């Protein structure tokens, strides 16, 4: 099964693995937020709607929602973030992943940007 990495305008990345997507925030986003000190993770089994906040990232002096890039059900969360929220800063695209969502409808991911498009998008931010 092929994997593809996509981005949202909210600076989240989505790694599509069949009917399950893994979600995190982009390097740009982690840099803007600064040192992440706490991650409020969703619970496995939670149902999320596209565009809805499903996790909360806290830096020392800011709180940011992470918006669900797709609708579906949470099937895994990155529990390592509970003790080491800094993983998001150190490895945003890999060890700093936040959750995995099982898609309601595989078609949804079509609207997202690929890496090249996201790089273009960042130039305009």
């Amino acid at each position, binding site marked *: 099964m092929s994997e593809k990495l996509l981005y949202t305008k909210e600076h989240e990345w989505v790694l599509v693995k069949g009917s399950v997507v893994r979600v995190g925030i982009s390097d740009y986003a982690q840099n803007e937020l600064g040192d992440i*000190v*706490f991650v409020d993770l969703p619970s496995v089994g939670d149902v999320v709607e596209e565009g809805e906040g499903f996790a909360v990232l*806290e*830096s*020392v*002096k*800011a*709180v940011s929602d992470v918006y669900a890039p797709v609708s579906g059900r949470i099937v895994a969360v990155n529990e390592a973030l509970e003790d080491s929220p800094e993983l998001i800063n150190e490895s945003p695209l890999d060890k700093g992943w936040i959750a995995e969502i099982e898609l309601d409808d595989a078609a949804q991911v079509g609207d997202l940007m690929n890496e090249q498009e996201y790089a273009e998008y960042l130039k305009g931010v």
Partner: protein
Amino acid sequence: MRYIPITEDERREMLTSLGLEKIDDLFQDIPQEAIFQGELDVPGPLSEAELIRHFRELAAKNQDATKLVSFLGAGVYDHLTPSIIKHIIGRGEFLTAYTPYQPEITQGVLQSIFEYQTMICELTAMDAANASMYDGASALAEACLMACAATRRELVILPATLHPEWQEVVRLYLENQDVAMVYLPQDPQTGTVDLSRLDEVPWAEAACVVVQQPNFFGLLEPVAELEKRVHENGGLLVMAVDPISLSLLKPPGELNADIVVGDGQSLGQAMGFGGPAFGFFATTDKLIRRMPGRVVGETVDAEGKRAFVLTLQTREQHIRREKATSNICSNQALNALAATIYLSVLGKQGFRDVGYQCLQKTHYLKQRLLEIPGLKAAFSAPSFREFALRGAVDWAEINRRLLDHGFLGGLPLARFGQPELALFSVTEARTKAEMDAFVSTLRGLIS
């Protein structure tokens, strides 16, 4: 004006640098109809000497505890206060600092708060404490709201034995957020929560049960029974405690309390007509991120040296705004510092001595007063620093006459709907001679 250093010449020079002619030009953005045309209706100016005279006159119209022997308690107590407290908290570096937002130049306040938090944890046997709240009553109200947020429930069980003013404050806070309240009735015999009527309240719906220990009447509540009930049903145990009693009593942490609050007036604070003292607030590790108020944490500086800083700030209003755990901003930091100094200088043994003497002296006065015909103990449960007596007398009138003899008598509970009761408090500051004289005077007035 004596606190304004700018001279008339400087004023002119500064206006000129702004291209303005007169002071009024600074207010040109204010619409004319908004400008106040008259002179404020306030007296003054008074010179320092006149001000002192005026305050002395006001103070002289009050009768204070340096001239009267007081047996009043009910939330504010006449304890001994070591002299060094006022000298240290009077230092300008503490007194005239704002909240420690810039940690590099406010380590003094930050470290003292860290010490304070540690002491509150030691007294209560809880994991974490915040940097202080306004007072015990508002701290309890916030604890109830926190329990609601933590359990996602909207009902709180309150004991009828809770201080009546605290009940009012809690009611006000909870009503404004549409949280329901039910009361556990008082056992008329013991004076504590009526354990035979626990089934009358909806435990399964309750965010928390509140217990005040000792309760308003100075009596020790059967916390274990309430703890069992509330935890079996998924709610939290919120305890409101008297800090001096924690020198002797089992700490709330050992009773599995989830949130502990209290009023710190008895820890080295002036009575001050009821304020300022402070509220303390402690909880478990699990609930730290739901705690209201400021918190200081330990960290290191750029060179790896130990340092302290305000932390977990994302809970607070300046960041989370309407989603904050509370709206509290200013707290009672200087009072918390006074308590920290108090607990330091009293120390492990001295603090225990205070509690022990309060207990012994309270017991002594109670036994002596019970010798007076017509007076009975109102309740049977064991008590700590306060006790209620029952007597078919006009307590307010008795108190007026006691004043002539230099005594502030016990608090008549008529104001709280119990006309036959009066609540007496005894601290370590009372002497046997004072108590004996009080007993004989009261005996004379009653018979």
